[in-house]
């Protein structure tokens, strides 16, 4: 059987380009499209999320579904399905109560998340292992990655950008979630405790606000805005999650039909190399077993391994040799 056309399309001129191979100490030159030759376990091969993140994702996803179901039915009270959904939650008053409880759990989860990432970062800084590139902090590279990726989708670039642990999409989504959680929490609190929220605004803002008191002044305006933003932000979150997040994670080519990362906290090797190439290089540096495996793959597929001390021409690899090479 001949080489698959998509592999053949990677012509010599592409391979000759500087960034086709990435040299890793002790492994060799890693070609950009090596993900087409590796073996992947659907449950995930490489570590990505800690157990805390998995728990947090589970809590946030569950509470979000409850919040969306009760909140949508309460907000769109006059549409035909609203009474059925509300009946499912035991009436309007109970649904409002459940909405609040779910909101509290979600806010607590957010606090849990902040504690986790802060503690983790501090730990890494103390060990001198902290690398901002492996965090969610946005960098200018993300913008170039987006442009590069669009070019790839349009067929101009031969490969997808080499991305860090979190790609531009993930960083965007993460920032959106932070913003959304803050807006929804503040607006929700304003709706839940109108008296307190009306009072905490300093008198100055009230006086600065030029609008005459016919519309109720600043507290009333804030309440109006809170009503708008709570609903708008929630609908936006729901649509983005339903049509973007789910599609990106489980449906787009390469990810279909399902990813188990949200439960196992591990990512498949193929996915890691394709979308988080630089993170895979980090993995190679950190995990000896992965180095051995990659060397084996390179050798089996007759990629250039001259950088190694001994290159075996045999198809199969003895584990003893692999171990030596790893050293």
């Amino acid at each position: 059987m001949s080489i698959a056309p998509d592999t053949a399309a990677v012509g010599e001129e592409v391979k000759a380009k500087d960034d086709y191979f990435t040299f890793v100490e002790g492994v060799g030159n890693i070609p950009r499209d090596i993900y087409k030759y590796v073996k992947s376990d659907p449950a995930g091969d490489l570590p990505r999320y800690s157990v805390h993140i998995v728990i947090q994702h589970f809590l946030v996803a569950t509470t979000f579904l409850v919040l969306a179901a009760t909140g949508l039915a309460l907000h769109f009270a006059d549409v035909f399905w609203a009474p059925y959904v509300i009946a499912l939650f035991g009436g309007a008053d109970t649904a409002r109560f459940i909405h609040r409880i779910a909101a509290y759990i979600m806010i607590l989860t957010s606090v849990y998340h902040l504690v986790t990432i802060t503690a983790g970062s501090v730990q890494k800084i103390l060990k001198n292992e902290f690398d901002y590139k492996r965090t969610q902090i946005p960098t200018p590279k993300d913008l170039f990655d987006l442009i590069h990726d669009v070019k790839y989708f349009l067929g101009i670039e031969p490969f997808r950008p080499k991305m860090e642990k979190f790609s531009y999409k993930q960083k965007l989504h993460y920032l959106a979630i932070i913003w959304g959680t803050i807006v929804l929490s503040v607006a929700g609190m304003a709706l839940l405790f109108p008296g307190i929220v009306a009072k905490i605004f300093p008198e100055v803002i009230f006086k600065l606000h030029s609008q005459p008191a016919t519309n109720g002044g600043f507290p009333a305006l804030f309440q109006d805005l809170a009503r708008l933003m709570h609903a708008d932000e929630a609908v936006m979150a729901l649509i983005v999650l339903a049509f973007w997040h789910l599609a990106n994670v489980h449906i787009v080519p390469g990810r279909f039909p399902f990813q188990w990362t949200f439960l196992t906290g591990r990512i498949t090797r193929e996915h890691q190399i394709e979308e988080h190439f630089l993170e895979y290089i980090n993995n190679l540096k950190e995990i000896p077993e992965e180095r051995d495996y990659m060397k084996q793959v390179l050798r089996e597929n007759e990629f250039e391994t001259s950088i190694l001390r001994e290159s075996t021409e045999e198809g199969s690899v003895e584990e003893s040799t692999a171990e030596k090479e790893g050293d």
Partner: protein
Amino acid sequence: MDRSRDLNSLKIIGTISIFLVLVLALLSISSYAEAADKDNCLMCHKYQFLGRIDENGKRINYHVSESIYNHTVHRNISCRECHTYIKKIPHDPVEEEVNCANLCHIKTPFSQERFSHERIIEIYKQSAHAPGPGDSALLEKSKPNCKFCHLNPMYTRVSEERIDYHESLSRCLNCHQEKGVTQAYIHMTHRLRKKTSRSPQEIVELCAKCHQDVELMKKLNVSKRGQTAVETYKQSIHGKSVILGSEVAADCISCHASNALHDIYKKDDRRSTVEKKNLRKTCSQCHARTNSWFVQVAVHPSTERDENPIVFFANLSLKFALYGTVFSLVGLMLLETFGRKKDGIKFLLRNGTSWRGKPKQKEKKKK
């Protein structure tokens, strides 16, 4: 020995159960309202098809259902105490209407005075709903009288629910006089436990009967906010909760009337519960933490441009943000799906998918 004991206990159980059945049967016989029909009006009015077709071709049914009437609050009041104009039987065609301010022959237990709805009618007469001297003919015609809201089937007893007795006591005092009733009430259970005997949904429906009619409201020179009152209420969290069946969310009466229920005034009236100075007290019925800031929050929120321009433009920009975000993100996703066709499904089919755990290297190896 055991068997005779069993037999004995069976006998006792049998006797007790027969006794219980008898007691229950006695209890379940509803008290027959003899007093209500001492003039024997039901002799004719018990017939279900008693009626006539009037000059305009309208069908009128004069049937009085005894089973319904005996369960209403008026069950102990004889027909002629309200229908006073009937002097003889068979009676002449009825021209007059009943007057709810009549004195009944029912005496209140402590004051021993004849009962009347006069006190509440006095409150109603001062409210915004009573015909006033400066009213146009249309306005006078449009204003609701007693029977407009209090339809006869509504005179049924309400279910008991325990709330603070001061609340319901103030309702008693709408009609009863204070002396005696107060002491008596504390030692009694009573049925007027809620502010209104109707559910919030029924109250909203009742008020909306007229106030939703924007054309009528325009003709009656109601203010712009008044015209959209029902619509804006339904956009508020109170309205949405009530539509979905909430029992605790505020309905129209909760805010617009005190416990006298009929004292609905225009919002500029000093006596009105929604007048600026009274708002705090009104809101604090439910919202414990009310303050001068809280009462400024819009209960009838409007996003109309000319009423609330800031909110209108905020709404508009939020909509833009929503659709902009959604369409750009979904657009990017679709572009990705299109762009990855080249290494998408075909790639998976040709090389096997990571799902099956197959290595994807075989083809190249064979070469």
